[in-house]
């Protein structure tokens, strides 16, 4: 994307004189800014959605007063955080205290460079993309330890130590799970992994249920691997139920106890950037990335018809029960379906954008993470280690072997 942007800039006669390095640097800056803006806006939106989701799951209303249905609540929160006093504790290690949050944020944001948003929307098409993402996101633990140590606070230090132990423990099963996928594709390039999931196949290769050729449906071992990866990644990004580094009932706020204002906002930003990154990785590796699921079912028309049916059913069963009938979703889906059947080209255009499917999958995974967060109780420290070393690690090792055996049986690889 950077190179193509640079080529596009140089294609103008007026700008061609600036030379390749300048154009390349300019495109680099633009792309980085785009990624950062995406991460920041994403955090603002996700905080609002998370508060709303948690409220609905607890029969509450959530933020309601700022904007329509509280939609500007997080904007107001962000403005407040930016205005707050910049406090550095007197006994803190000032240098580490200042750069700790930035290390975490940079490590979270930089990983998005390798994420393919669509078939063309990719900042850097590197052939070690998966390895790059996993290794860079591990730098987060460095920032957490820096922040926790520099705060000179027992809770911060406990949180940082727990975080380090947890991330290092869960890196191993996560890495092994990813190796299983890499063994199937034969490449570490994320774009290649997505392209390998195109087309239609049977469920688990033999069961005659037509499904998109995604790796969740590739074989039972990868199906299990998807859940193992989701669990391990949840632990890696310190989200509930694995949020012992910042468990507020034990450690006040863990490694971010002493932080406030902008620095604290950076922690929050990186937290949601990490959650989004995990959702992206799950989508790319197991759910076919930007591949449309409707290529399977005889085109987009059938897909939209199914969506309309679902919307009608949802209206009938949920909305009538609530005695608040709204024809908007049904009407919208009916109109779209009608257009899809009347104009096949429109249907193709509507179903093709990879960005839409990518973001839809990411949103689903993020909702799943929120669902986890507001359902599960937090694990104890020893339980956390038990789950990692005694449950997930053996299962992922068996999984890796199972994937290899499966591929030998189905003839995907020959020895």
């Amino acid at each position, binding site marked *: 994307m950077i190179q193509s942007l640079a080529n596009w800039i140089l294609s103008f006669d007026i700008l061609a004189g600036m030379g390749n390095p300048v154009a390349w640097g300019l495109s680099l800056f633009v792309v980085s800014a785009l990624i950062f803006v995406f991460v920041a806006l994403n955090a603002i939106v996700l905080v609002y959605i998370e508060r709303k989701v948690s409220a609905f799951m607890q029969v509450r209303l959530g933020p309601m007063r700022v904007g329509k249905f509280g939609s500007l609540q997080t904007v107001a929160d962000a403005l407040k955080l930016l205005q707050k006093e910049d406090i550095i504790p007197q006994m803190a290690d000032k240098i580490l205290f200042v750069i700790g949050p930035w290390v975490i944020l940079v490590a979270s944001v930089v990983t998005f460079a390798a994420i393919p948003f669509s078939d063309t929307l990719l900042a850097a098409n590197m052939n070690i993309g998966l390895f790059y993402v996993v290794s860079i996101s591990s730098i987060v633990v460095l920032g957490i330890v820096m922040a926790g140590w520099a705060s000179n606070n027992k809770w911060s230090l406990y949180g940082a130590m727990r975080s380090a132990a947890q991330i290092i423990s869960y890196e191993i099963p996560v890495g092994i799970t990813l190796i299983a996928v890499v063994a199937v594709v034969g490449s570490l390039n994320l774009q290649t992994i997505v392209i390998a999931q195109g087309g239609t196949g049977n469920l688990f290769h033999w069961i005659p249920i037509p499904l998109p050729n995604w790796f969740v449906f590739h074989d039972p071992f990868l199906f299990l691997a998807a859940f193992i990866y989701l669990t391990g990644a949840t632990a890696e990004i310190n989200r509930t139920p694995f949020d012992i580094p910042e468990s507020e009932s034990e450690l006040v706020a863990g490694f971010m106890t002493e932080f406030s204002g902008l620095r604290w906002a950076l922690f929050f930003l990186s937290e949601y950037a990490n959650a989004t990154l995990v959702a992206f990785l799950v989508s790319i590796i197991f759910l076919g990335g930007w591949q449309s699921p409707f290529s399977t079912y005889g085109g987009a028309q059938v897909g939209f018809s199914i969506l309309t049916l679902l919307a009608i059913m949802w209206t009938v069963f949920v909305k009538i029960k*609530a005695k608040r009938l709204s024809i908007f979703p049904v009407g919208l889906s009916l109109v779209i379906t009608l257009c899809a059947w009347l104009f096949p080209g429109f249907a193709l255009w509507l179903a093709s954008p990879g960005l839409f499917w990518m973001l839809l999958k990411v949103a689903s995974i993020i909702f799943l993470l929120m669902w986890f967060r507001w359902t599960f109780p937090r694990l104890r420290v020893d339980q956390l280690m038990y789950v990692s070393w005694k449950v997930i690690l053996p299962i992922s090792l068996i999984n890796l072997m199972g994937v290899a055996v499966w591929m030998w049986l189905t003839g995907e690889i020959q020895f």
Partner: protein
Amino acid sequence: MSYFNNIVQAISTLIDGMKVTMGYFVRPREYVTLQYPDEVWPVPSRNIGVGELDSYNTIRSKLTVDINDCIGCKACERACPVDCITIDAFRGGPDEDLGTTSNGTKIKLLVTDFTIDMSECMYCDLCVPPCPEDCIVMTPDYQFISNDNLKTDVTPEQRWRDRSLLIYQFSKVSEEERQRRKAEAKAAAAEKAAIMAAKKIAAEKAVAEAAEVNAEPAASASSSGEATETTSLASDSDPQVPSTAPEASNPETKVSYAIPLETIESSAPAEGDSDTPIAEPTESQNSTEDIEEKESENG
């Protein structure tokens, strides 16, 4: 084997929990949240109690008075244990019709100021039963803060110390009218006090004249004894009473009429070299001159 049982049990219970939360997420909304300033819990207006406590158990959140029914009897002011009620009431003029209360009682006093300080009120309800017109009541209104009288030019600290938002003033008349009534009442009170003072002095004078007849020897004894100096007891600044002594302009003598005669010595400063008081007060100019003569003789 328990290892696998643990895993299976963990997964099944997690799925159970997720079902519960998703059930609440998609369920028709039965929120427990109340959007407070927009909607409030219903408050029973009166009588939340049962049985014989029925009339007593009202919700006591805010004390209010129906000022149009107040007759200014000050029964509530006297009943209040913490003195949070202050009433200013003035008698109307002879030709002034102050109307009647809703009970039909004729109002005789004009209530110009009925102040309830809710920052001192302890919600004891003791002021309500004494009211003859049932015009002071406890209401269930618990929202004291409103934007109506919110002062925007004060800092939060000032507002925190400022109780003025909790002081409720009721009045039948305007502020100017109130001030005018106050001034009138003050003037009337001063006039009354003056008349009372004049009456008192006249009475004392009568007593003194009666005593002078009997106490001639005492007066002569005082004048023939050691020289003493005293102030004239009859002196007063009131122009209605003619001053009989040159010391009448002395302000300290103003109050002397109200003080028992035995304590005159302490209140009146001795100007001479002797502190010995005279036995009897003398009213006539002659006796005073006598004393002065004696003093000059002594000096």
